[in-house]
């Protein structure tokens, strides 16, 4: 046998030159510095989710539309034919449908958002990306649906004799405000759920309460009590629906300011919305670095 004798390995710690350092990395963050990456990620996740909803079912989008339509149908039959509920509101069926569509958006987006961080665990634990992308992509998917469903509402409106009006231009603004509301709730709920797993049933119950506390299948003027009306309008969802009915369906629905009885009373819903958005973000931001470990 030939023996090849190598000198013993001798590289315990060859002195390495001191190196300068690059940028300090901050660890996991909620938003991060790269706004484009943030947007791209949110969009990619949202679009994928949206596509997936329609995969594997023949009727695709129709099913998506079916839920609010079914709810609308049931409510409509129950209230107008069984209970003989008489509403003198203009285009009551369309007003009802719009309420249902808007509420469905909120309940769907927040309902999915509650568990979204946990559902996307494999992403959160395996890739570095701004954490806020996850709940916001859920909101974005729901908004795509919302836009389609609102299209149906408009078709219904025109079919029932409504007309295209200039005030429809408020629609994008209303959708944005609605999106903010959903996003604020979603960030808050998703971050809370990482810590407290019973947020989900709690939120389901709260959504039920909101369904009745918000003028969805009734209109605000039926309440007939200024104080209660104002109280109800402190709910941003109620404020949005009210303004939507005024701007889109028919001007005979009082606008938000009129319904609340003055500009002063518009402050509560705005304040609640701001609080949800800011508070939701701040809480999420605080929790963001730990989400990957706490899951």
């Amino acid at each position, binding site marked *: 046998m030939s023996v090849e004798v190598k000198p013993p390995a001798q590289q315990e710690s060859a002195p390495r030159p001191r190196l300068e350092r690059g940028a300090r990395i901050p660890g*996991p963050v909620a938003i991060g510095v790269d706004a484009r990456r943030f947007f*791209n990620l949110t969009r990619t996740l949202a679009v994928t989710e949206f596509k997936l909803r329609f995969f594997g079912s023949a009727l695709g989008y129709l099913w998506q539309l079916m839920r609010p339509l079914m709810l609308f149908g049931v409510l409509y039959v129950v209230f107008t034919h069984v209970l003989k509920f008489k509403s003198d509101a203009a285009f009551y069926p369309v007003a009802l449908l719009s309420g249902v569509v808007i509420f469905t958006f909120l309940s769907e987006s927040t309902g999915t958002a509650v568990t979204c961080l946990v559902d996307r665990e494999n992403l959160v634990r395996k*890739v570095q990306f701004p954490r806020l992308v996850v709940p916001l992509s859920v909101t974005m998917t729901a908004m795509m649906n919302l836009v389609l469903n609102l299209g149906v509402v408009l078709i219904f409106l025109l079919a029932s004799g409504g007309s295209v009006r200039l005030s429809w231009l408020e629609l994008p603004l209303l959708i944005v405000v609605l999106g903010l509301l959903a996003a604020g709730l979603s960030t808050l709920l998703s971050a809370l759920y990482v810590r407290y797993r019973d947020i989900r049933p709690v939120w389901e119950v709260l959504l039920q309460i909101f369904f009745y506390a918000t003028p969805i299948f009734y209109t605000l003027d039926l309440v007939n009590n200024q104080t209660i009306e104002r109280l109800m309008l402190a709910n941003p969802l109620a404020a949005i629906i009210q303004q939507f009915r005024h701007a889109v369906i028919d001007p005979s629905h009082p606008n938000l300011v009129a319904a609340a009885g003055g500009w002063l009373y518009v402050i509560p819903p705005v304040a609640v919305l701001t609080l949800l958005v800011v508070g939701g973000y701040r809480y999420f931001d605080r929790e963001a670095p730990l989400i990957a470990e706490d899951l």
Partner: protein
Amino acid sequence: MPTTRATAAVAVDRVSKTFRVPTEKVHTLKETALHPFRRRAFNEFVALRDVSFDVAHGEFLGIVGRNGSGKSTLLKCMAGIYRVDSGDIYVDGRLSAFIELGVGFNMDLPARDNVLINGTMLGLTPREARRRYDSVIDFAELREFEQLKIKNYSSGMLVRLAFAVMIHVDAEILLVDEVLAVGDAAFQQKCFDEFYRLRDENRTVILVTHDMSAVERFCDRAVLFEKGDVVREGEPQRVGMDYLELNFGRPEASPVDPGDPARSGDGEAEIVEAWFEDHDGARASMLELGRPCAFAARVRFAAAADHPVFAVSVENAAHDTVFGASTEWQEGGTGHFDAGEEAVFRVRFDNVLAPGRYEATPAVAQRGSGSKLMDRRQRLASIVVSGTHSSGALLELPFDAAVERAGQPAEAES
């Protein structure tokens, strides 16, 4: 190794990370509401303890360590997935981490969508991801399965797709966690080629793996983790040996146990201990393939003996005897030993044993044809042979291979 800039690609500075594992996880509001002030009991698990090291630009660093030694935690800290408790991590350049292949893959979508999602997650813009799609699918050799939902892919195909995406995310610094053992042999070769290419392109790669041969093959330097500490840093081969030693343990003194069933003999001599030695003559539990080494046994004689015969046989893990040595035919015999005297029997050989675990059975016998055993201790010493290549044979004999042309091909007849 190549240092193109004086800035560290990644600098880890006294990083510590402790996980607090609650003994009872408080998961519900009710529990919090009922016991708002109860101190929650935590088990602290220190994953990283004051870890520091630098990685230069263009360096290929291997991080090795046993399960739970903190290497993956460190990778996640470097990737920005975990927050460090103390210390800092500095990064110079675009960094991509591949903790797992195919993150964000959705089984219900075809390859294209998944490449776009995965690429975007890993840091490409959607436009870049679209532009690279063709090259990704060609690299993965999945062109004909492009339209298939990936849930219908075999696991090998999935991994190929994921690896292809990873290769196309051109980060300056890559953090890679255990993804080398992928695909069939042909694809694996392709992966290795890619790693060589990354090396040649002077990319910085930090590779976390259990596969020592990969570390020795690619890495310029390696870091060994044990219980959250860097226990060794340096040349891959050396670190690799330490790693294997950690895995298989230090050589243990073999205690003498007279009632041992693995023992036979009349007791006139006793094999006290046996061990292997490396090329430096130091006791070892690990031997490198191709190096000189030795087996040794210490024998104490209870009664005087003339020219006793010392022998050893070495078995591999399948209990095939692969090597035997004896003093039986040695000219002149082994000499006379008095009662109470001790002898050390040593067999030097070049280590041609294929990588794996071996056990040695030493024996001492009276001289003579009957081979009257004085002591024989089955599998008294064990050794692990490490090596970067294995032909699959029992032995790795040194050889020269030559190919010669046997005569020139006949010139075209004219």
